[in-house]
């Protein structure tokens, strides 16, 4: 058995930012475990622009953004292991990992930060009928094949789901000479960022069919076509409206799920809504000394917010290791009236200062609303929004003064209010 103060699972932007901030908070006994052959996580395959607008005030590609953090890790000589997969985390914080070099190792950690990202939802989870030939890819796999390996998974593409990866792949495949025939979205609104719909679809005249779904895949050895139909309000397909689109490839961009099997084994309590852990404002889960940040906690659209959240996790993990007392008193944030969730879910009533942002997603598209944070029914923050959509996370950054107020409130509520009222 080996011993470490802080073990970070995952070397994506979340893990890297957490490690950097833990180091800067004084911790030296840190180990990052990463299963891929490089640090950087999902960013390595995101070769498009649009990263870092908030953090660095400039537009970087995914790998460029990752590199800035990798440099910080190397400057600080923080230890990391690549090609190393964590296979178990126990309730008493024993991390088991395997690799070709080290074999199988158990580490007893004082604190653990889960930063292991998320995975794409598969075809089965959305229950599409039909044949099972080649040519059905998750958008992320297609992204890796095109951007990293230099291969085209197909030439005539239909994309199911309007998540960001799907939208970005629509543009990417078009650049590479493929014909993207359509993007099919079940909901009446997109799951992705509006800027991606404009830049990736509209600019290339790729049709986006809202309230439609693929009802059947045709093609025994390879996809030959898909049958697409409109759905009713209950999201059931209306078969009379079905039409066929010939294609050789289907990319699925139907959502991301936090990767929490390991956390579950460690008895971390998960949220039914986010799929990630339920955390307090120090990013700690119900298990003492176990923290989460990044996409494993809840799916982010912008990496900048991942980095900021993860720095909090790193700093608070060090406080925990150093035995800083924490308040046992806590208060749950209520989300009502069109607000689907807020991370963190819980605020500790202690006085330890740390930067705090409330990350909020709404349940539907709403126009002309105010997004409000209320303390004991008094408005603390009210933001006017022309539109809010589930695809765009709202990041409500709080000033230190606002944080102090939050910590003394007896009731915290986040809700949407119609502007007209």
């Amino acid at each position: 058995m080996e011993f470490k103060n802080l073990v970070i699972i995952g070397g994506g932007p979340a893990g890297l930012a957490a490690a950097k901030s833990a180091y800067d908070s004084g911790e030296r006994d840190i180990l990052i475990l990463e299963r891929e052959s490089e640090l950087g996580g999902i960013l390595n395959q995101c070769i498009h622009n649009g990263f870092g607008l908030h953090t660095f005030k400039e537009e970087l590609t995914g790998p460029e953004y990752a590199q800035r953090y990798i440099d910080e890790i190397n400057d600080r000589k923080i230890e990391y292991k690549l090609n190393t997969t964590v296979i178990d985390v126990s309730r008493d914080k024993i991390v088991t990992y395997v690799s070709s070099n080290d074999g199988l190792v158990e580490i007893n950690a004082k604190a653990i930060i889960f930063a292991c990202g998320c995975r794409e939802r598969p075809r089965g989870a959305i229950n599409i009928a039909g044949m099972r030939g080649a040519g059905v890819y998750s958008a992320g796999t297609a992204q890796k094949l095109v951007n990293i390996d230099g291969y085209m998974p197909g030439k005539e593409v239909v994309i199911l789901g309007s998540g960001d990866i799907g939208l970005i792949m629509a543009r990417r495949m078009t650049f590479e000479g493929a014909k993207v025939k359509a993007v099919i979205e079940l909901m009446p609104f997109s799951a992705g960022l509006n800027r991606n719909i404009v830049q990736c679809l509209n600019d290339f005249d790729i049709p986006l069919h809202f309230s439609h779904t693929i009802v059947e895949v045709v093609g025994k050895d390879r996809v030959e076509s898909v049958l697409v139909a409109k759905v009713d309000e209950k999201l059931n397909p209306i078969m009379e409206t079905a039409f066929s689109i010939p294609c050789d490839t289907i990319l699925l961009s139907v959502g991301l799920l936090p990767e929490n099997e390991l956390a579950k084994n460690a008895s971390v309590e998960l949220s039914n809504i986010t799929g990630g852990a339920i955390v307090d404002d120090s990013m700690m889960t119900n298990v003492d000394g176990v923290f989460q940040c990044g996409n494993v906690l809840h799916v982010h659209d912008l990496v900048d917010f991942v980095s900021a959240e993860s720095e909090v996790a790193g700093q608070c993990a060090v406080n925990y290791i150093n035995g800083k007392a924490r308040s046992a008193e806590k208060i749950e944030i209520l989300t009502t009236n069109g607000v689907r969730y807020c991370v963190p879910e819980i605020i500790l009533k202690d006085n330890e200062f740390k930067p705090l942002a409330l990350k909020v997603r709404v349940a539907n598209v709403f126009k002309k609303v105010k997004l409000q944070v209320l303390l004991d029914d008094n408005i603390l923050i009210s933001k006017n929004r022309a539109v809010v959509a589930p695809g765009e996370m709202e990041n409500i950054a709080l000033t230190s003064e606002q944080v102090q107020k939050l910590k003394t409130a007896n009731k915290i509520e986040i809700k949407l209010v119609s502007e007209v009222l």
Partner: protein
Amino acid sequence: MKDIIIIGSGIVGSSIARELSRYSVSVTVLEKGNDVSVGTTKANSGIVHGGFDAKSGSNKAKFNIAGNAMFDKLSEELQFPFIRNGSLVLCFDENQAEALESLYEKGIGNGVEGLEIISGEKVRELEPNISEKVHSALFAKTGGIVSPYEMNIAYAENAYNNGVEFQFLKEVIEIEKNEEIFSVKCSDGSVLQSKIVINCAGVFSDEINNLVCEEKLHIIPRKGDYILLDKVHGDLCTHTLFQLPTKMGKGVLVTPTTHGNILLGPTAVDVDSKISLSTKRNELDSIYESAQNTVPSISKRMIITAFSGIRAHSIGDDFVVGESKVKAFYNLAGIESPGLTSAPALAVHIANEISTKYELNKNEKFVATREAIPHFAVMDNAKRLECIAKNPLYGNIVCRCEMITEGEIVDSIKRPLGAKDLDGIKRRTRAGMGRCQAGFCTSRVMEILSRELEISMLEVTKSGVNSEMLLGRTK
């Protein structure tokens, strides 16, 4: 020239090949697919049936009972996953109790051991998640579950190791018999000759028979759709749960698989095509609804995939087994359920018949055992450490959901009758069979295939001919 040609490498062809390899005869298996277990054997319920359901006195009843009894020893010898978990036939209505009783009687008549009718309370004790509506059940302790493709692969590997030749991409299209010699012609133009032909062509067994025999057979393809649930819900039930057929229909079964998932299905629809394994939305919905009658807490959110299989339903409603009117031409036709359960007994039966008739000598070098691929996911940590020390590739986890290592994948490609495509690797190792359904490991597995088979990435296929994964390079 060969002594024996077997057409088809499903469970029936492969198990006969293995039983014949106990004798010194030359055997060639001709398979039109590029791998073994690509027909019906790859997609079915995987139930080792108790045998209470088969018509008394039928081949189905006889071979089911005999086959079932062979599984404990076989699964040890050939190292394939098998669990004798017991089955329950659920009766939901007091008025149906009589039908349950007669099923029990039929089972006793067929010679099934350990049958018992139990009360609803007892059922709920055994299966806490089962519907409150269950009135009583027939409990068959000898019922079991098996991984059908792993069983098929195990049989084939063992046959191969004992000298049977397997030829793939050999679709038999013509058979001629001249003076005791069969000339078997394949679609690639090749012709092979043998003294004996055994037809194990599954849903195509009628067509193969009809190439040779006056007495025509007719197989009706009958499709069954399935839904598979995530392992995290693997504790929904431990026994195989059938519904007692009613006027409303047969109902679907709910069963654990040997790897801890839950399987729901099948439907039963006669179809025109013997090859179109297309699931249908309305059928999937009907499975889901019917399964909820058994276990009400089943929900659509638990689904990870759906698939379908095709039954070879023969007009006569029984297995056609043995030598046909054409001498030395053997049929194993219409082998629908319980074909998987019966296969071991069918194989021994056919091998005995042929060895007696042709006075075959024993193959002195026959080895009855076969070693499975060591599965990292199910080892304890000490074993894992040892395994990585021996082969560092066991330290690289490729499929996250099922914890499958590069070592296992390479083994599956390199071993006898090894995997040639993604589906082949999947059936041998489970890489890509988990929750994310190969969302993540696909590209890694493709790289490993390309490296180990020394083919270009563009030649990597999902399931053989015409199923290339990639359609070109980027600009």
